């Protein structure tokens, strides 16, 4: 009888699946609201970008974007469930809906945008691939690396750029594939490889974790363009718009001088109509996105505007000590440029 009961249950379940289970276009915004939490994919650990603080709380430049988005959508910057993903697991996780947004220093490329079926919603860090090596090697340029062993994270664009770089320059090398940044660091530290290659920001971050950062140097060559940014699944335009304009709001806030400290006061109304539109005092931009009027104000209040986030986690005064460089606003000599809030 037991068997028959189970058989019956399977039969009913199968029938139900056929009848009601046709996959449709999921409205991510509704799912996030219903769940009461934003599932955000982040790195397994990269100083400055995604790391745990002394209290064990996830924090960092990529994490801050998740918190801003959660504040905009759910009204609370802490309503985020962080999912740690490696270079290989991140795309299947996003494609399968395990996460709502991926904010994990991911390079925007045509094939990922088009072929893998994702939508990149902007760039939050303009980066490029570089090499780090021991000063004692006496190497001045990456072109002198003939015969060297190179540590590399698998499943990343850096793996492909590396192969291209050595092929173009007709240099032989031994690739040493590693799964995570932490393991790559351990292998490099043990001199399993002569140099480690990844995005220059990642190299700066990894270098801070070495016992003697001064013994290592980042080579001058930047061998690729790596525009890093958050991404969502393709096909849900409303959700992509929300994610995109939250990032734009953080950048525009820097441009217009809206900060974590003054956003509450500015939200009550200012002389600048663009600030008023963004913060919900004028117009109905929140409604257009399917959110309430104060969404942008909350996003900015969460971790501050783009400049505040940058300086706090990765900027000149942080342990990483990265300059703004390309990531300065267009009017300050960089290429950071948000479309207008109009």
């Amino acid at each position, binding site marked *: 009888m037991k068997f028959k009961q189970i*058989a019956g249950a399977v039969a009913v379940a199968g029938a139900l699946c056929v009848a009601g289970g046709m996959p449709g276009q999921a409205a991510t915004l509704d799912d996030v609201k219903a769940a009461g939490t934003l599932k955000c994919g982040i790195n397994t650990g990269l100083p400055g970008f995604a790391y745990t603080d002394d209290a064990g709380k996830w924090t960092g430049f990529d994490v801050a974007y998740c918190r801003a988005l959660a504040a905009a959508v759910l009204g609370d910057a802490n309503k985020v469930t962080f999912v740690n993903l490696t270079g*290989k697991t991140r795309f299947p996780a996003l494609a399968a809906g395990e996460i709502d947004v991926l904010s994990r220093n991911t390079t925007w490329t045509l094939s990922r945008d*088009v072929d893998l079926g994702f939508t990149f919603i902007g760039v939050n860090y303009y980066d490029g691939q570089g090499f780090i090596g021991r000063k004692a090697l006496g190497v001045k340029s990456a072109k002198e690396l003939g015969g060297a062993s190179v540590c590399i994270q698998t499943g990343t664009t850096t793996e*492909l750029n590396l192969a291209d770089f050595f092929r173009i320059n007709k240099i032989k090398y031994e690739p040493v594939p590693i*799964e995570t940044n932490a393991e790559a660091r351990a292998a490099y530290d043990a*001199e*399993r490889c002569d140099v480690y290659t990844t995005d220059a920001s990642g190299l700066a971050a990894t270098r801070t974790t070495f016992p003697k950062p001064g013994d290592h140097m980042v080579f001058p060559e930047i061998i690729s363009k790596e525009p890093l940014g958050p991404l969502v*699944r393709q096909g849900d335009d409303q959700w992509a718009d929300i994610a995109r304009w939250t990032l734009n709001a953080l950048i525009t806030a820097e441009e217009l001088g809206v900060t974590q400290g003054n956003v509450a006061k500015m939200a009550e109304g200012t002389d600048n109509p663009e600030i008023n539109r963004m913060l919900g005092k004028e117009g109905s931009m929140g409604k257009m996105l399917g959110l309430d009027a104060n969404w942008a104000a909350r996003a900015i209040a969460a971790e501050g505007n783009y400049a505040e986030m940058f300086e706090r986690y990765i900027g000149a005064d942080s342990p990483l000590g990265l300059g703004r460089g390309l990531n300065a606003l267009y009017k300050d000599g960089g290429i950071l440029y948000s479309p207008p809030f109009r």
Partner: protein
Amino acid sequence: MTEKAPSGAGGFDISRAWTDERVRGVIFQIALVLGVAGLAAFIVNNTIANYEEAGLSFGYGFLFDTANFDINQRLIEYASTSTYGRALGVGALNTILVAVMGVAAATLIGFVTGVLRLSNNFLVSRTVAVWVEFTRNVPVLLQIIFWWLIMLALPKVRDSLSLGETVFLNNRGVRLPSPIFEDGSAIVLTIVLLGVVATAVVRRWAKKRQDATGRTFPVGWAGLGLIVGVPVMAYFALGQPLDLDVPVQKRFNLQGGVSITPELVALWLALSTYTGAFISEIVRAGILAVSRGQTEAAGALGLRRNLTMREIVLPQALRVIVPPMTSQYLNLTKNSSLAVAIGYQDIVSTGDTILNQSGQAIEVISLYMVFYLTLSLLTSSYMNWYNKRIALVER
């Protein structure tokens, strides 16, 4: 439901159908088949819909696209301009390499420790027992990482340990001189092969003679002479037609010769000791399964202890040992996919990269399945054949 069907003698009453066990059985069977078919249809349908939604198309055409990434251990020609299919082939060969090496080493380790565990020497048997219990009960993934860290703790490349400046050991692996074949080396290789064949013939002859007359013949020494001695003489007679490409220290690495990566060594050690510990227990069980009377009878005939083991106990124990060994070999092969943790580029490691670049998840996973299934079935069918061969012949 209240409607009554005409119920003649032995007729079928629809309202009573539920209480008839046979009818109920048929209904349940139909429902089960429909349910399973429905689930299968749903899974296929859902997958196709998801692929369409993600803008992907199902198919294996991507295998002909350019891979664009490098692999550090290649048994066949491969470059970053090769195809995904070829990259997967390189990975598959790497899996087969570590599986074959692992099976050979695990068998050796297992037999030696299995016999040692039954030793009368307390220290030896206890030491082996502790080692077996420890190795069997620690997850193999941890052991792989443990051996990898041991490899990383070896001397750095610039302080390599060397054996007469020809074989080098450092934390980038082992580097051996590779042979360069010159004119006449083919003759030497042919002589080696002939030596192997001749040894096999001698072995058959010696066994026949021993069965017939009881006189033994030193097959081991004869084999050594035929396989090693004669070719060495030929080698010198032909003017040493074999040269060695000896590794030399260059700016970053040793260059020349062949390199065995620390990842391969770590994976091989971990898999062969882990599986070896299980085989050790199987061997012990197999030996214990042979009745004590056999040993005593051999002793009464005056056979020495090692001969008793080799000629009386082990052949009988093999019948107990071989069937469970098959599943250990299959386990070892499947466990080799944990290589991904330390960056040994086996089929899963290269496949994951391909999956990540191309997005063709289901196709790549299906190729893994076909590959492991084929490997496992081949191993099983060989082991089954071998098991039949050594089985007790009843007359």
